[in-house]
C-alpha cells in the first residue's frame, strides 16, 4: 500500500514513503512538523488548512498526499524568504488583521494565491477571493485592508 511520494515542499525537494491516501494536512503536520497549517473542520468548509499547490490555494484536509506527487507545495512556513516576511505577513501584522490567529495561515495562503493571479485586486475581488475562508473572531475588515496594502507593496517591488 505504501508508495514513495516526491514533491517540492517550501522550496525543497521532498520524499516520503507512506500510504498515498493519507490526508495531506496530517502528513504536513505530523510527518513534516509544519503545524502552521491548521485543522478546522476536515471537510473543506473553513479554509484553515489552505496551502498552495502549484500556486493554487487548496484545502489540504480534503486531499490525499498521493495527489501532490511531482507538484510544488507551499505552506505558511514557506512564505518568508531569508528571514524576511512575505508582504502579506507583514501587512497582517501592520493592520492587526488577526485575533486568535487560528484562521490566519489559511487566510494568508488564500490571499497569496489570489495575489499571484490578480496582483491588484479590487476590494470586491478580495472579498470574493476570501469569501470561503472563515474567521470567527471577526477580523474581516482588517484582513481586507491588509490584503489591499500588501498588493500595493508587492507591485512596488516589481
Amino acid at each position: 500500500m505504501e508508495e514513495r511520494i516526491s514533491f517540492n515542499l517550501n522550496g525543497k525537494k521532498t520524499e516520503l514513503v507512506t500510504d498515498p491516501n493519507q490526508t495531506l494536512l496530517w502528513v504536513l503536520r505530523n510527518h513534516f512538523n509544519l503545524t502552521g497549517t491548521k485543522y478546522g473542520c476536515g471537510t473543506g468548509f473553513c479554509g484553515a488548512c489552505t496551502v498552495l499547490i502549484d500556486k493554487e490555494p487548496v484545502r489540504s484536509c480534503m486531499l490525499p498526499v498521493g495527489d501532490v506527487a511531482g507538484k510544488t507545495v507551499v505552506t505558511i512556513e514557506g512564505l518568508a524568504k531569508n528571514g524576511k516576511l512575505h508582504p502579506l505577513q507583514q501587512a497582517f501584522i501592520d493592520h492587526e488583521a488577526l485575533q486568535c490567529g487560528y484562521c490566519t495561515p489559511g487566510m494568508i495562503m488564500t490571499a497569496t494565491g489570489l495575489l499571484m493571479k490578480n496582483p491588484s485586486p479590487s476590494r470586491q475581488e478580495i472579498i470574493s477571493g476570501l469569501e470561503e475562508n472563515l474567521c470567527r473572531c471577526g477580523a474581516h475588515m482588517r484582513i481586507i485592508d491588509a490584503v489591499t496594502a500588501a498588493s500595493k507593496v508587492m507591485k512596488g517591488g516589481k
Partner: protein
Amino acid sequence: MKKTELKKKESPETGENSGMKRRSFVKLLGGGIFIFFQPWSTLDLLAIPLQERRSLTKDYNAFLQIAADGTVKCFTGKIEMGQGVITSLAQMMADELNVPFEKVKMVMGDTDLCPYDAGTWGSQTTQTFGPNMRAAAAEARAVLLDLASARLGVPASQLDVRDGTVVDSKNAKNKVTYGELAKGQKLEKYLDVKPSVEEYTKFTYVGKPYNRVDSYEKVTGKAKYAGDLKLPGMVFARILRPPSHGAKLTSVDVSPAEKIEGVKVVRDGDFIAVISENRDKVDEAIVKIKAEYSFNEMKVNDKTLFDWMLSADSAANVARTTGDIETGYKISDKIFESEYHDVYLAHAAIETHTALAQLVGDKMTVWAATQSPFGLQDGIVRELGFPREKVRVITPFVGGGFGGKAAYQQGVEAARLAKLTGKPVMVVWTRDEEFFYDTFHSAGVVKVNSGIDKSGLITMWDYHVWYAGTRGADTIYDVPNAKTTSYSRGKNAPPVHPFSTGPWRAPNNNTNTFARESQIDIMASKAGIDPLEFRLKNLKDEKMIDCLKAVADKFGYVAGKAPSGRGIGIACGTDAGTWVAEMAEVKVDKNTGKVQVVRIACAQDMGLCVNPEGALIQMEGCITMGLGYTFTEEVFFEGGNILTRGYDTYEIPRFSWLPKIDCVILDRKDKPPKGGGEPAIIAIGAVVANAIYDATGARLYRVPMTPARVLNAIKKV
C-alpha cells in the same frame, strides 16, 4: 498607603495549593526576585459559582519574576484566545513597574506556575484582575525600591525609576537596574495587597495603542496551539460518541476497528476510544465500530422549543422591582405586549476543543485549548482521582473561545486516555464533535408588556424572561414602575435543555438587549417620536446619553420617525460595566427578504481604555460576530440529536456580509477600566431589527432574521 507585608520566611504557610510546591517553583524558574501575592479577595471568589470555586490558597504561586537580564515575567492564570490581554496586561505591568514594555513577558494559564484564576470570561480580565494586578505591581515596585535603597545607600524616597533603572534623584550616577538587583538573587517576597483605585492619568504605556505582541508568531505559523504540540510516542485518539444526547450504549462490536493495522481500541466501561500514531487511521477506525443505543430523548425540537419553555416547570424569580407594576398598567395611555424568541447558538471557534495529555510517573500534564486551566485541573482531580498537585494544565494559544472553551471535557478525555494507555494522547475534536458537545448559548423567550403616557414617557415596564438569564435584563431607561422576572428550571423539575448550555459571548445579554431595544422602538414608533429622541427622553443615565449622542454624531444621524423608509436603526445597552450604543443602516430586498447591512457605527464608554487599538479590534469583532446571530446562526435539533453539525448548516459571518464599521471609544481616562471583549455584540440583533423596521415597517420578533422570516414579516405589514 496600602499595607505591604514583607515576610522573610523560608516557606509560606501550607494550605490548599494550586499544584506545585514553592521550592520547586523557584527551582524551575531559576534565579531572580520573586514576588508572591494572592490576586483574589474572598469577595472576588464569591462571584464564582460554588462548584467551580476554590477556597483561597495560602500556598499561591508567584506573580512576578524579575530576572538578572531585567526581564519581568508576569504569571497569570488568564489565557490568550485572541482578545489581546497578552498585550494589554503587559502594558499595565510596564507602567506600574516603570519598565520598558518589551521587557515584560506574560506567562499565562499554567497551573504550576501561575496563581489560581477561575477562568478567562465575562470581560473580567481588565476590569477585575487588572486592578489587583496593578496594585500588586505597584507594591512590587516598592519592594524593588527598598532593595535599591540598601544597594545605593540612599533613602527610597530619594529614588526615581525610569525604564527599569533606579536612579538617585540627587546623583544621577548613583543608579542600579532591576536586573542588577536581581542578579545572583533567589529572593522571595510576599505581598498582602488590597487593591485600591489608582491614579489613572500618569501612564506611559496604558492608554496608548499597541499592536498585538503575538502577531509575528501567528502570521508565520510558529504560534503553538494545543494541537501543534508533539511528544515522543504520541498517539491520536478518537472517542466513540452517542448519536444523540441521552442515548445509552446497549451493545458494541469493536473488532472491525481492531483489525486496522496500527490501531488499538481502548475501553473503560462505556468509554471507548481508538488510538493510533496516525491521525487518518483513527478517523478510519472509529466509524468501523458497530454500536447500538437505547434512546430516551426529550420530546422537543427547534420548532416546538418556545412552547416547551413556556410550559416547563419553571421557578420565577423577581430580579428587580421599581415602583408598583399594577399602578403602571393603570396609568399607561398605551400598552404594548410583545413576545421575543432567541435560539440556541454554537460557539463555532475555528480551533476545535483540543488537548494533549502525558502521564510521567504519577504526574499528569495536559496542554489544552481552554478558557479555564484551573477548572480543567479540578475536572481531572474530580473525574480521574488524581491529587491536585499531580495535575498540571498548560494553556498554549487558544484558537478562539467566546465562552465555549470554558468547558473542558476534551482535556479530561485526553488525561483519561493517557492514564489508560501510558502514552501521550492527543485529542482533537472533529467539527462534528465540536457542534455535538458544544455548551450552546441558551435559547430563550422574552415577554414584555410596556406602557407610555400621552407625552411619550415610559410609565410601565413588565419584563419576563424564560431560560435566557438576567444579564442585560434590567431596563436601562428611567421607568417609574418596572419589574423584571426571570424563569429558570424549577426545583426538582426535569431539565429543559436536551443538551449542555453555557456562556456565549456576552451571555444572555444578546437576548435581553434584542427584546428590550426592539420594544423601545415599537413604543417610539407608536408614539410618533424619533427613536433617538424617544430614548434620550426616557433616559437619565448620563453614560448612556453620552454614548447615544456620540454614536449619532459618528453616524451622521438625521432625525426621522420610523418607519422612515431609510433603513436606519438604533439600539443601546450595557454589559460588563461598559456602556454601548449602535446605529445601523440596512438595505432590504423586499422580494427575497435578504438584508445587507451597509454600515454600523458604535460608541462605547468602557472607562479607561488600556489599549485603544486592541479595544477597537474587539468592538469590530463583536459587531462582525453579532451579524451571525442576527442573520443565520441557529442550532437545529430533534430531542438530543444535534442536526447542525458543520459550517455547511451553521453559517457564520463571511467577508461579503461586512458593513462599513465606525467605532468610537469615549475618552474616560479618569475612570476605572471596564470590559471590552463583549459589549459591542449585545445590540447588533436589535439595531438590525430596528433598521429593518425603519426600512419596511416590518417587525422581527426573533433571531436569526433569515430571508424567509423577513419576507414573512413584510407580508404582515
